[in-house]
């Protein structure tokens, strides 16, 4: 079973990043859970979700021992980097997070300028898909094709197929960037 935490500011779309991952797993016949964190403060602050997936039953859907972390902003990085499992992977959005890649020697930290990349491919709102794709690549459980198909399937069910091309572009960009 794989456990991934997606974290960032409220508006950065990290909940969707996680959802894409869970959806890809389901699409490939695995089990998956997606659970957002939500606390007392509703306005502002950080948002995060935990995704677990795998072939076996998922008992505890909540965060326990993340294998991977996506940190889209500084506060999220600070909050979650110590929790990542030894041997795990952290992907930071280097547009917002200014961190030392050697902050932990038992964990591998990747930097990706998600917002800049999104601007570059002219998908200004696509940073979260770029990040989602990068995480899927880093997790190493699914191919780019599986990822794209799973993602498209999800947006189609939400009636959002009109963004398909844009999303695919962002996905490919992210997948290939790490």
């Amino acid at each position, binding site marked *: 079973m794989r456990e991934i935490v997606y974290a960032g500011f409220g508006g950065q779309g990290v909940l969707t990043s996680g959802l894409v991952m869970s959806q890809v797993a389901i699409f490939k016949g695995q089990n998956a859970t997606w659970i957002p964190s939500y606390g007392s403060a509703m*306005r502002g602050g950080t948002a995060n979700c935990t995704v677990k997936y795998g072939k076996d039953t998922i008992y505890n859907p909540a965060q326990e021992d993340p294998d991977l972390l996506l940190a889209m902003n500084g506060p999220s990085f600070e909050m979650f980097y110590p929790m990542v499992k030894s041997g795990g992977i952290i992907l930071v959005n280097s547009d917002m997070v200014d961190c030392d890649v050697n902050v932990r020697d038992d964990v591998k930290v990747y930097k990706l300028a998600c917002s800049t990349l999104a601007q570059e491919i002219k998908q200004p709102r696509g940073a979260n898909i770029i990040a989602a794709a990068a995480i899927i690549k880093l997790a190493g459980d699914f191919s780019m094709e599986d990822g794209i198909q799973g993602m498209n399937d999800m947006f189609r069910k939400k009636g959002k197929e009109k963004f398909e091309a844009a999303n695919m572009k962002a996905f490919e960009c992210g997948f290939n960037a790490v």
Partner: protein
Amino acid sequence: MAKARKVPAIIDNPMSFCPGCGHGIVIRLIAECLEELEQDQNLIFALGVGCSSLLGGGLVTDRLHCPHGRASAVATGMKRVQPENTIVAYQGDGDAYSIGIAETINAAYRNENFTMVAINNTNYGMTGGQMSWTTMPGQVTTTSPLGRDCEITGNPLKFPELVASQFDVAFAARGAVTSPKNINKLKKYIKNGLEAQINGEGYSVIEVLSPCPTNWKLSPLNSMKRIEEELIPYYPLGVFKERKEN
């Protein structure tokens, strides 16, 4: 022509409202009035549940988080035992007019000697923008997904008008925070309400038309525009019950 302006000490904190939220303006006006009336060190807030609750962290004053809708009953208990303190019930439209309508109306009915400020942002802001009793006809909210149908949900409630026409209260008015001019008028209303209380004249209510850009899914500026163009024609600004001594 310049005026020295400084946020009153009791409210001089970063507030966690969304950008462009009206709550921030109103609470500052209340604080200014209290300061000018020398009540800022003699006051207790009965806070409603809603984005009003965010004041729990920002207000440097005695304040109680009341159960949702019950601030006017709580304020009644406070004022009865501590008549020398100035008591302000600060509530949202959902809090005061929907779940709390019994307690709100009854405070007016008994002409309890405190001041209620009701932030009418035409929805339940805190919980993500559900319909409230002041939601406009046709307004889309998360519980009126096809737009509010007044045929089955009733017409938006006009509380200051109801109170002024039905009960013997000290002061009732409605203001808005859309422009410096309206804000200044609103401040006069709030001051009148507080003065009425200090003089023992009885219940005062000031409703404020206030933007909720987040849930209206409008920019702060367009939210103000919506108030001017849509809300004020339905919810007229002004005083509905003048103070007797004025």
